[in-house]
């Protein structure tokens, strides 16, 4: 029995699609972002209610049970996850979405007689499986269940080509025969392709791949909408596919890389694979008290937070230090590199969590011209995003990435755990410059000591 006429269903789907567009639109500005997200969630609720009321469904208790299980698993995890671990959670949610799309297409194959619909089935199966497996690998990399460095083996491009050729062949077989066995084979090939696609990507490029896989899942969902003849899935999936593509390009641009370069760079050996060698060159290290004096008697301090700050859970201490300095009349800003942290904008989230006012968070383009007026640039747990090698060393893996121009500040203070190079594994010449001081130790401990010393001035 269905309660809704097709017209009402279409109207509800339209309302839901509008909600999704408003959600993405709302996410453009910090003021409207949260409402935007809620509007999106509301749109999803409308769509789910509409499908229950408009389609003749069997097994309803089972379906409701499955929805309850999915919510019961996902909601608490999403509530409790540490903000530093959020990128891998997003990767995980993205992967399961891709997997769901692939399974839907697999089951719908038996109902598709039309050749073009079968093409959409093949697309969904393949792309959904790639997204699922690729996201699983990115999750493992970010969770450090496996190495974060690129994994490359000889012959990888050949294997990848063979897998893709096999996938095209199998896909053609599925379109012609409608065989579900072949479809399962195609899905397995998709899983292998997803693993091979992400394995060679390493270091700071992993978040860009999450965004790319996010767009992939969107496209898979759109294609599944074509299979089911469901307009809402087509619209929502296409929206995500398109916006995800733009977002991926924006992220890659922020790092001075191309998306193709990230995906295929490691095949040629020119990726962000670096060394973990510890340099023997002399540096100037100093005590927390000295750093406190530098900061406390400065007029303008720019703090450059990096992922090291986040892993040490030192955001709150950094915020307190900024506040203590402001009370002394020091002008303090936070300079946020677009890829500080593990995802673009990740550092903003972490600092916002620590109650740093949004106005103090300055983007790279805005703050770079101000470093020359700064007395001290305090670099906390960041390395690659301030590495001048990105501008000067043509062979460097990060060459071309825009950096924060901390070297123009009168004094540069690095809070670092050790002399080990950063995520990308490249040495930073800035640390050996005469204007640079290093304070070794865990970012949070160091900040706590500096904070104590500033308060004692």
């Amino acid at each position, binding site marked *: 029995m269905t309660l809704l006429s097709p017209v009402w269903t279409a109207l509800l789907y339209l309302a839901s699609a509008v909600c999704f567009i408003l959600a993405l639109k709302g996410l453009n500005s910090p003021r409207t972002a949260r409402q935007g997200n809620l509007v999106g969630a509301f749109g999803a609720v409308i769509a789910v209610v509409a499908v229950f009321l408009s389609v003749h469904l069997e097994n309803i208790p089972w379906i409701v049970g499955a929805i309850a299980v999915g919510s019961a698993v996902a909601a608490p995890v999403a509530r409790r996850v540490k903000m530093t671990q959020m990128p891998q959670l997003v990767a995980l949610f993205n992967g399961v979405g891709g997997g*769901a799309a692939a399974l839907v297409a697999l089951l719908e194959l038996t109902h598709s007689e039309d050749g073009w619909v079968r093409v959409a089935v093949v697309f969904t199966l393949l792309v959904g499986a790639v997204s699922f497996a690729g996201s699983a690998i990115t999750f493992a990399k970010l969770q450090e269940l496996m190495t974060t460095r690129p994994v490359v083996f000889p012959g990888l491009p050949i294997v990848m080509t063979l897998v893709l050729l096999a996938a095209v062949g199998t896909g053609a077989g599925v379109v012609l025969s409608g065989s579900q066995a072949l479809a399962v084979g195609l899905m397995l090939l998709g899983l292998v392709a997803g693993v091979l696609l992400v394995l060679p990507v390493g270091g700071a490029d992993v978040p860009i791949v999450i965004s790319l896989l996010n767009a992939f899942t969107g496209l898979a969902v759109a294609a599944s909408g074509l299979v089911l003849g469901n307009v809402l899935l087509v619209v929502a999936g296409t929206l995500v596919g398109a*916006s995800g593509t733009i977002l991926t390009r924006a992220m890659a641009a922020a790092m001075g890389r191309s998306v193709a370069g990230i995906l295929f760079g490691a095949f040629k050996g020119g990726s962000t694979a670096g060394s973990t060698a510890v340099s023997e060159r002399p540096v100037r290290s100093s005590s927390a008290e000295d750093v406190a004096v530098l900061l406390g008697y400065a007029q303008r301090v720019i703090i450059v937070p990096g992922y090291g700050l986040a892993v040490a859970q030192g955001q709150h201490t950094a915020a307190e230090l900024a506040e203590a300095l402001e009370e002394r009349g020091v002008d303090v800003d936070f300079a*946020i590199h677009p890829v500080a942290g593990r995802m673009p904008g990740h550092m903003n989230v972490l600092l916002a969590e620590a109650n740093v006012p949004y106005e103090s968070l300055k983007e790279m383009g805005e703050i770079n011209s101000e470093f020359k007026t700064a007395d001290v640039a305090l670099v906390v747990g960041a390395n690659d995003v301030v590495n001048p090698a990105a501008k000067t060393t043509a062979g460097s893996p990060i060459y071309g990435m825009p950096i924060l121009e901390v070297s123009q500040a009168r004094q540069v203070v690095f809070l670092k755990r050790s002399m080990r190079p950063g995520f990308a594994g490249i040495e930073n010449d800035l640390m050996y410059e005469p204007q640079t001081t290093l304070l070794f130790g865990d970012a949070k401990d160091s900040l706590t000591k500096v904070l104590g010393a500033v308060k004692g001035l």
Partner: protein
Amino acid sequence: MDGISLLTITVLAVFVGFEVVSKVSSTLHTPLMSGANAIHGIILVGAIIVAGQAHEPLVLAVALLAVVLATANLVGGFVVTDRMLEMFRGRKRTVSADKQREDAR
């Protein structure tokens, strides 16, 4: 719905998708990615339809797995995005943060 209408809708959706995120500041890239991620969880609608048409136990089992995965994507995606955005508050301070500062003094 016929093919041409679907194609029209798809092409228009591509443009809306491009347009709607083209001017986002990098500050909001992470929440935006996460929000878009939640939206494709709407594959739940497809999973429900497929599960509602299942007659064989195996088909039902696979379809229900798809429902669970899609729900995780949808619910988890919106919740985690909300958590991120909860933190963009501007210059207001929370009671707990003020208390932490008191304790620190």
